């Protein structure tokens, strides 16, 4: 019988090759990709998220766990795609115009993907009109806006205004985050939610669905 706990721990502890080997073993023994995702990877990301939030692990360990998760999920992806396995939701995320920082955004992506979200990474320095184009053309549930610099925060407000002007605001929930961003600022610019870190982002994203 396949040991999902061992897989979860190998991912949580960032053991990249072991996570890949165990995933392959599970697939070879006929376990469905969706079951491996639900019983192996989701618990792993819960362990990682809790440990990160409690300050038991830091960025190096989180990034290694992310690599291990990617190694596993890459093996599951073909079957997940074929069977049209449902994602938790669809999330588009980008760093706002003028801001070229991506580490916070990338951690959020890692945690969202690990929790079953289909995430589209729009990259850095994303203009309000680019965000609008993405919202218009896709069926996303949530748009995440990230900023590290105080002087790029107004671009979050500009992006929300652009969504309103394009008649798209009601189509999507908007979450904001980043070091200088506060709940008060999120409220002031009309965002739907603020998340202080990646773990909170996952919980809040789910509550917005």
């Amino acid at each position, binding site marked *: 019988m396949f040991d999902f706990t061992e897989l979860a721990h190998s991912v949580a502890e*960032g053991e990249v090759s072991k996570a890949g080997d165990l995933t392959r073993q599970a697939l070879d023994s006929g376990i469905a990709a969706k079951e491996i995702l639900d019983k192996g990877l989701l618990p792993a990301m819960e362990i990682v998220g809790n440990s990160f939030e409690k*300050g038991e*692990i*830091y*960025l*190096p*360990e989180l*990034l*290694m766990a992310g*690599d291990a998760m990617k190694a596993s999920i890459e093996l599951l992806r073909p079957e997940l795609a074929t069977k049209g396995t449902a994602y938790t939701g669809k999330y588009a995320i980008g760093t706002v*115009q*003028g*801001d*070229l*920082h991506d*580490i916070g955004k*990338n951690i959020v992506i890692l945690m969202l993907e690990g929790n079953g979200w289909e995430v589209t990474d729009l990259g*850095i*320095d994303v203009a309000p009109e680019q965000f609008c184009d993405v919202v218009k053309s896709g069926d996303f549930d949530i748009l995440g806006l990230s900023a590290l*610099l*105080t*002087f*790029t*925060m*107004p*671009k979050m407000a500009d992006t929300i205004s652009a969504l309103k002007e394009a008649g798209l605001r009601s189509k999507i929930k908007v979450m904001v985050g980043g*070091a*200088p961003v*506060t709940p008060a*600022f999120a409220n002031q610019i009309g965002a739907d939610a603020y998340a*202080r*870190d990646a773990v909170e982002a996952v919980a809040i994203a789910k509550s917005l669905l």
Partner: protein
Amino acid sequence: MKSLTNLERMLKTIRREEPDAIPTFEIDIDERVIEAIKPGASYEDFCEYMDLDAVCYHETRTDQYEVIDKAKGLVRDQWGAIKQYSAVSMSVPVTIEPAIKSKEDLTTYVSPDPDRPSRFKRLEEAVKRFKGKRAIIATVRPFATVKDSLRDQNELFKDMVRDPDMVDSLNQIVRDYYRRYVKNLIDIGVDIIMETADWAFTHGPMVSPKYTERFIIPVFREIVEYCHSRGVPCLKHTDGNIWEIFDMIVETGVDGVHPIDPLAGMDLGEAKAKYGDRICLLGNVDCGNLLSWGTKEEVREAVKDCIRKAGKGGGYICMSSNSIHGAVNPENYAEMVRAIREYGRYPLSLD
């Protein structure tokens, strides 16, 4: 008390003695703010106009980037990393491609020359103009060099877990460079060295205390010890919540820590109570929200609050929580300096 020179005020404060007044300076002041307050002024003219107690010089300013593609804002820094400016954040280019992408790159890597005369030109002019009057500060950033120029930061963090030797090799590059560079700075006449690499995020240190001790502290400790051997104080800046590594930082012998980041929940009063007998504290006036969007009255209250928490007996330099960046309201910055002058005179009388 006889009025001190700006330099004397800074040094006395860093020694945690009570000066005539609380000093102020900034690590960086955006030219848009300078232009709004004193049109046409150079950085140096502005520091004199505002009577700031120190002038601060950065490597990236004294040794300009090589432009690769002006239209795209692409430059190459002295370490070989390709960086990009954006239209909005004109003062902070971000690394697009690091200098070292693999272990093989290490074998052929050539470090920049810490003795190159051109990099000291602006500092030499500052020494001529300010020596003995205002404190001349030069910044260095070994960990940021490793993280933002030599290596992709995500790869660096992962190297700490999977390939510690790689991190040691990268650290050796910056150790060799800064050993020589700091010596040159002090030879020229710099009064204070300030290490300005961020070591923490809003929620805590970037890496565990164990990795901070293993990979970040040693190069920094060497700089502190070298500065002290030359009779020069050494200050540390890092954004973020540093409670978990604060002891470690103080134990290096560093003379002061900036900015006790309010956005990361750091409390200046608590820092004063815990470390005020061992280090000078700097900063804490919120430049993220308050100086950008607050009212003048709120700025005055924040300055009073900082002075109330950390000013007693000296050992506090009142300044922003990072820098006077482009989104700071110039009127708020001017108000902050006015309030420091008004409420920062010893004996303190805040109410």
